[in-house]
């Protein structure tokens, strides 16, 4: 069983592409080998900035011989038919076998495909893999036409077993496979030969190349945390940065250096972002104060001066960067202290948000009006919410956010405090962007919640109004994330927000705004509300409102499914009235989901379905609806009488529970029906010969259905 070693040696591969490339190399090569009839025991892929490596162990030495039989025409078939068969198989008449069959002598072609040697297959698969490699971006170089992520310099391709190793003969454009590679660019220049994976890995290590990215990550993290710990400090964890840095070096050397005293007053987010984005430095903080005091950089080599020159250079670059940041910080704060955050935001009138949706200033005016409208619903002060909305995006005009867009919101909060604004307003500047993703925290301060909802709902209704909805995998404006944000915000507040009427109001309002302008957006909103109240049902509901609600329902399904609630349970609740109230909807779904997991729940569901089926059949056959109400005086058996009593009790309990939105209590009342329904079906024949009894029993089934249907649409539950 030979082992296979492949190394594709190139100029520096972007760090962010390496993990994916390892997976792709492994999959494309092993799939290709298996498809060609080889088997293997295990495979592992590795990468450094300059190489992409695959090691396959226990590869079969050749593919098996394949025997293929094809049945042809009868032996005495017309010559033309036999000719055709010969052509299609590529055989001659005397190579065909004749076999007796129940219809007589039939011709058979037996083709043997001999197995192929592993080197031939590897060569073919490797060339195909290289030529079709799915790099996110690839390039040509020199005079060649081959595409690779950066110029490909050498291919190492070896098959080795006990007898030794041999180079697999493969040439891709001008690159011919060899058994040699290079070590570290600076610390061990020059090529060397290898005999197999273990030899390769060991020799690389001696040539200052740590092959495994995971090992490099570990080495970096271990060394960084050790150095920090020795000085009573801690490294701020950053898995993304760690992976990136591990993809930038073959021989990681961790160096820790100080941040100039004059920069320690900058907000930690600024230090961290500047160091991370520009320099790929880790932040090192003082655990006692939370202050970031040092940086860790990862160099790609050892030097005679133990990194002193490298560290000095890095510290100098950092100083220049942080001087810029400090300049922005001081300037921005001076601006807000003189003209306020609203003054800073003034320029947003000239910034286009989207060419069909107007300027950032228009958008802020809408968010402000909406925040004022939504505030009472989430327990926030309308004035504070409006003030927060007015300034929440001001920092988009700050020099700091101009330089570091990822600090939007964060800087707003700092600058709001510098301008002396109330704390809830300062909080909202940052928090109104949240939640940024499914795992991001949801803001809790009511003012933040109001502005966050207003911002997201404005975005959603805006793009809905111009028909820019997400399609398939395309969601350029992150509308799914916005809708999920609204859902999570509403659910976290436990407040009721009837979305359909809100959407209707907003779509009508947006139509008015396009005429009236945004100067007094809230007054226009109030005007629309007055008109709706005055004209009631005659006011049209824009079709986008229902469409957007459906989009929310789809997002909610995804969200609840992740919480372990089945889609049919959600459907059963969505079919109920008031389904634009997410809080109510989810309470109902959670209660139903819990109920269906109980014994009573599953059995009641069976009873309900049985009742519903019998009733549906009878109604279809008789062409009537048995909704007259059953009469207890026609009850013949105890089971019937017991069910009567139980239904009456259940109805009496369910109605107030539903009124109070206590779904748990409603489900419990429904659960009490289980035993009487079971007993009823065990002892009573619904389709009795006596038409009066039959009608009464069908009417009774109807009340089972109606009672259950007041809780959820159980017909939608599967199973």
């Amino acid at each position, binding site marked *: 069983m030979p082992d296979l070693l492949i190394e594709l040696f190139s*100029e*520096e591969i*972007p*760090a*962010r592409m390496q993990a994916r490339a390892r997976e792709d190399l492994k999959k494309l090569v092993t799939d290709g080998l298996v498809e060609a009839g080889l088997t293997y025991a295990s495979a592992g892929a590795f990468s450094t*900035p300059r190489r992409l490596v695959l090691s396959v162990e226990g590869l079969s030495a050749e593919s098996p011989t394949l025997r293929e039989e094809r049945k042809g025409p009868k032996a005495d078939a017309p010559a033309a038919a036999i000719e055709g068969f010969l052509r299609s198989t590529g055989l001659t008449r005397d190579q065909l076998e004749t076999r007796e069959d129940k219809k007589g002598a039939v011709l058979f072609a037996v083709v043997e495909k001999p197995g192929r040697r592993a080197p031939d297959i590897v060569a073919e698969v490797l060339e195909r893999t290289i030529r079709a490699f799915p790099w996110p*971006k*690839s*390039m*040509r*170089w*020199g*005079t060649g036409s081959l595409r690779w*992520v*950066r*110029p490909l*310099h050498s291919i190492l391709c070896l098959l080795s077993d006990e007898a030794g190793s041999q180079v697999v003969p493969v040439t891709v454009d001008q690159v011919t496979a060899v058994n040699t590679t290079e070590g570290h660019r*600076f610390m061990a220049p020059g090529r060397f030969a290898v005999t197999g994976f273990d030899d390769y890995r060991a020799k690389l290590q001696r040539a200052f190349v740590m092959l495994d990215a995971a090992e490099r990550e570990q080495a970096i993290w271990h060394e960084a945390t050790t150095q920090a710990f020795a000085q009573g400090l801690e490294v701020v964890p950053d898995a993304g940065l760690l992976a990136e840095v591990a993809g*930038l*070096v073959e021989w990681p050397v961790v160096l820790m250096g100080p941040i100039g005293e004059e920069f320690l007053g900058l907000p930690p987010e600024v230090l961290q972002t500047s160091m991370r984005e520009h*320099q*790929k*430095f880790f932040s090192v903080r003082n655990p006692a104060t939370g202050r970031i005091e040092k940086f860790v*950089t990862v*160099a*790609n*080599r050892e*030097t*005679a*001066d133990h990194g002193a*020159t*490298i560290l*000095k*250079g*890095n510290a*100098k*670059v*950092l100083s*220049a960067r942080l*001087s810029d940041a400090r300049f922005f910080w001081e300037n921005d704060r001076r601006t807000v202290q003189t003209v306020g955050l609203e003054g800073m935001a003034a320029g947003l009138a*000239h*910034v*286009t948000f989207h*060419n069909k949706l107007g300027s950032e200033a228009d958008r802020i005016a809408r968010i402000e009006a909406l925040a004022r409208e939504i505030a009472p619903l989430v327990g926030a002060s309308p004035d504070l919410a409006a003030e927060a909305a007015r300034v929440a995006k001001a920092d988009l005009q700050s020099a700091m956010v101009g330089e570091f867009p990822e600090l939007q919101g964060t800087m707003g909060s700092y600058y709001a405090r510098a301008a002396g604004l109330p704390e809830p307003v300062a909080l909202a500047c940052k928090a109104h962007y949240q939640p940024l993703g499914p795992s991001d925290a949801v803001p809790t301060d009511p003012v933040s919640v109001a502005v966050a909802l207003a911002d997201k709902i404005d975005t959603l209704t805006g793009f809905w109004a111009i028909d820019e909805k997400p399609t398939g995998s395309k969601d350029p404006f992150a509308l799914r994330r916005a809708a999920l944000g609204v859902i999570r915000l509403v659910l976290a507040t436990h407040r009721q927000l009837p979305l359909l009427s809100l959407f209707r109001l907003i779509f009508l309002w947006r139509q008015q705004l396009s005429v009236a302008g945004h100067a007094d957006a809230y007054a226009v909103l109030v005007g629309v509300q007055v008109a709706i109240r005055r004209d009631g049902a005659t006011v049209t509901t824009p079709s986008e409102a229902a469409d957007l609600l459906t989009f929310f329902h789809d997002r909610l399904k995804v969200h609840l499914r992740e919480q372990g609630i089945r889609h049919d349970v959600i459907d059963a609740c969505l079919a109920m009235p008031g389904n634009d109230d997410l809080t109510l909807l989810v309470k109902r779904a959670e209660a139903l989901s819990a109920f269906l997991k109980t014994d009573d729940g599953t059995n009641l569901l069976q009873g309900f379905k049985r009742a519903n089926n019998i009733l549906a059949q009878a109604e279809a056959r008789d062409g009537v609806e048995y909704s007259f109400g059953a009469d207890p005086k026609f009850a013949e058996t105890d089971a019937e009488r017991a069910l009567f009593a139980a239904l009456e009790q259940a109805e009496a309990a369910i109605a107030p529970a539903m009124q109070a939105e206590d779904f748990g209590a409603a489900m419990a009342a429904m659960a009490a029906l289980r035993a009487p329904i079971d007993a009823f079906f065990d002892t009573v024949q619904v389709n009795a010969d006596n038409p009066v009894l039959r009608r009464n029993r069908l009417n009774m089934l109807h009340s089972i259905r109606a009672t259950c249907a007041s809780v959820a649409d159980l017909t939608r539950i599967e199973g």
Partner: protein
Amino acid sequence: MTGKPVPPRSFQEIILRLMTYWGGKGCAVLQPYDMEVGAGTFHPATTLRSLGARPWAAAYVQPSRRPTDGRYGENPNRLQHYYQYQVLIKPSPPDLQQLYLGSLQAIGIDMELHDIRFVEDDWESPTLGAWGLGWEVWCDGMEVSQFTYFQQVGGHDCKPVSGELTYGLERLAMYVLGVDHVMDMPYNDPDSPTPLKYGDVFRQTEQEYSRWNFDQADTEMLLQHFKDAEAECERILSAPETDKAGRRIVMAHPAYDQCIKASHLFNLLDARGVISVTERQAYIGRVRALAKKCADAFVTTEAGAAA
């Protein structure tokens, strides 16, 4: 790459060493283009010569102007007028990275003490309709060069591919010479009879141009110049290919001069703050349209022909 390099003593010595180095590696050492440009890439020795099949190797200094970067000579690192060192070799040689590292060694960077890395940075010039893949080269965490394999210029595929190197000379020199403020950097040898610092040469011009760029440039006139350059570029290219004597002379370079002009005028207008965000894209698109037409014309000439 052996032996300790001798450190240079001045800004001009770094330029001279680069000239000597790349001249020694077979590049034609050209002079700056005599027009205002935003970067060395705009020099026709790069933009136009990266097109077509003819081999090419050139190195030159290009004064570059970025009006919005003016800081009245006060910022230690930012200038509205600075120098780029540009190398373009077509086809890109297989050892371009080694050649490049050799040039760092030549200007006094000791490879045994410094940490040189190639960090992904794809290059795109929306105004030139050009893009390429490559890196920014870091020396101890500082970007010292851009290294790009051109894939497309003026909307044309580059065949063969050119390798382009761009050194930001002031920043690189400040690093090599250990200077913190650009104006303090020795321009010539500090021991010469008339030692001059970068500030002695450029502080006053930085002030003057910053004021003109930000406050004084006549925007009406600049807008008109932009339109004129655009119209002249189109007119030149729409002229018949044969002149009055019946010679075929496609005027790709004169047309391209107008494209360069339009690009710089756009930068000036941008610095004056009279171009809105939405208009920005439209202006860039207009310059790109000119660049594409110039490239279309150049590839029909002898110097730009395909193989």
